[in-house]
């Protein structure tokens, strides 16, 4: 009988000690998670609410319906920002994807010094966007950067003034953003290339496929799940791009390189139009959701299919 009692109390004691043992885990995971979730959700809801109020310098209550949205959507500032976002988003994603893929394929040729090169290509990712923007603004500045260097070397006809050219300035942002993040695409693609079964490549060799055909028909098609991930991550960055543009062109010349995040900043903190700024922020959120929701659906379908297979 005593035997029974002692065994019966044992689980209770160990359950308490188990909880004490796991307490740090709960504190480390749940507290920050709940805090950040509450933050994110409450401020999102607050921003959405503000976007329907006539707030200007300070938040006020009241209901103006879609007035803020209409005025933001009608403003030239937003229209240019949206067009720029389309151009920047597409060009940046496509170019960083191809650059990253090309670097990954070149690195995959069992070259010497691969580790060093990989680190070099990944390094820009460790630099803050503000630093990238500032450095590229110097490099691209015709008075002190690449153009000056070419002139000093004696190539006086060299002309590279994209940074101050209304039509081309957006491309300087594309260049800087690619420099910063194609290493990320490269790292993911390289991992994908390395995970391809070497027997498959041998089989293609025996089948008589040359290197181009092997990559195009056999290896690259296996990379498309990685491609989707890279596209979504890069699009997310493109849509919320702020620090890079602010440091590189600050939306200029004029408003030629305006992007949605800059519009929000401009409305909220420079023109003191909280309501309109909030409306622009909500519009940005909607654009983000337009990218993320299909991605989430795609991942869900894929997982279900994998679970069935």
């Amino acid at each position: 009988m005593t035997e029974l009692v002692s065994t019966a109390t044992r689980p209770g004691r160990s359950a308490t000690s188990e909880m004490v043992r796991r307490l740090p885990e709960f504190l480390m995971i749940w507290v920050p998670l709940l805090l950040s979730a509450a933050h994110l959700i409450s401020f999102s809801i607050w921003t959405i609410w503000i976007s329907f109020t006539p707030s200007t310098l300070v938040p006020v209550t009241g209901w103006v319906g879609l007035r803020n949205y209409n005025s933001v959507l009608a403003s030239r500032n937003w229209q240019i920002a949206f067009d720029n976002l389309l151009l920047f988003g597409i060009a940046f994603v496509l170019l960083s994807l191809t650059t990253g893929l090309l670097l990954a394929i070149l690195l995959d040729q069992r070259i010497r010094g691969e580790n060093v090169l990989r680190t070099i290509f990944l390094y820009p990712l460790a630099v803050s966007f503000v630093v990238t923007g500032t450095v590229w603004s110097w490099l691209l500045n015709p008075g002190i950067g690449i153009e000056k260097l070419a002139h000093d070397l004696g190539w006086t006809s060299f002309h590279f003034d994209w940074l101050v050219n209304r039509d081309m300035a957006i491309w300087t942002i594309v260049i800087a953003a690619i420099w910063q993040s194609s290493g990320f695409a490269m790292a993911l693609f390289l991992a994908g290339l390395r995970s391809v079964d070497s027997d498959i490549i041998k089989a293609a060799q025996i089948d008589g496929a040359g290197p181009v055909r092997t990559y195009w028909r056999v290896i690259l098609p296996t990379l498309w799940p990685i491609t989707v991930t890279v596209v979504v991550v890069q699009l997310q960055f493109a849509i919320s791009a702020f620090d890079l543009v602010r440091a590189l062109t600050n939306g200029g010349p004029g408003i030629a390189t305006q992007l949605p995040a800059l519009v929000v900043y401009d409305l909220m903190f420079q023109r003191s139009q909280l309501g309109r700024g909030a409306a622009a922020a909500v519009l940005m959120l909607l654009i983000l959701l337009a990218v993320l929701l299909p991605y989430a659906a795609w991942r869900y379908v894929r997982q279900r299919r994998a679970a069935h297979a």
Partner: protein
Amino acid sequence: MAALSIRALSKRYANLEVLKGIDLDIESGEFTVLVGPSGCGKSTLLNIVAGLDRASDGTIEIGGRVVNDVPPKDRDIAMVFQSYALYPSMTVRQNITFGMECRGVAKAEQEKALANVARLLQIEPLLGRKPSQLSGGQRQRVAMGRALVRDPLLFLFDEPLSNLDAKLRVEMRMEIKRLHQRIGATIVYVTHDQIEAMTMATRIAVMHRGVVQQFADPDTVYRYPANLFVARFMGSPPMNTMPARLEADGGGAVAVIGAGRPDEVRLHLQGYEAAASYIGREVVLGIRPECVAEGDRVFSGAAGPPVIVTAPVELVEPTGAETIVLLRLGGEPAQARISPDIRPAPGATFSFALDIRRICLFDPETERLIA
């Protein structure tokens, strides 16, 4: 005509010699199995034949043509890989026709070849599927289809069955053998599984440490293993090998196991003239477990009654089809395969019949077969 000739082939990686002077001649229509433990160099050899790896020395001829510097696609070979190596993004149909597409074969001809192979392997319903939608056995079939459609001079199989479960492996083993009988292809097949080698091969090359230990038909390899390694590698359970002393006895020889012990076993050997020079010396005696059976067993083709010995039983392993008994012959451990319904008690003694016509004698120094 020799479909494949390998001459003095060696392969070195830095300071490691993986293949040491391989010589093999494989006739057209033969099913040759390269068998050996992992790391013996058999897969390296196959890769060199395929052109996926380069030899350090020696020549390879396929169909009478030296192919050392010929790329894999021009060697007129097809290969089936252990991982199947199907192209994951292509359908079964595309997997099979990809090689023809690379070689620029006309569409109509591709279709005809595809239809033939699909019918032969019964994979017609699978043509539209992706490899991820196939079972292991179906993938295996598609991989074979991809090889067959090429109709090459030489088929190379790299452990094609080791990823399948035991039941499917036996089925596919039979199917590959049947396929070989039907189309008469020349096959070089690599495996670490000696049963696959025994069941499928017309000739077996047993490899160990980068050297071909023996290259002969399965019966010869099993009955007359060239050395102790082959004797212990082929067969499951493997051949019993134990030290013995060879003594003269009138005209013949007597092998004595555990000489001087009270339970020494004396076996009168007939027809072992080649061992005459070893009389009075130590040898290694090999006897297959199936040549050690229960006392009343009559061995097929035996002229007289078998030799009966009484020996202590240490362990009994019933497998269902037979009972494997671990016993002591003259103090040396040995395994016996006896009838399934007989279960000697461990620790007790039991009388065993020995089929001494099939004993092998090996030189203890060189480990080579004497007789």
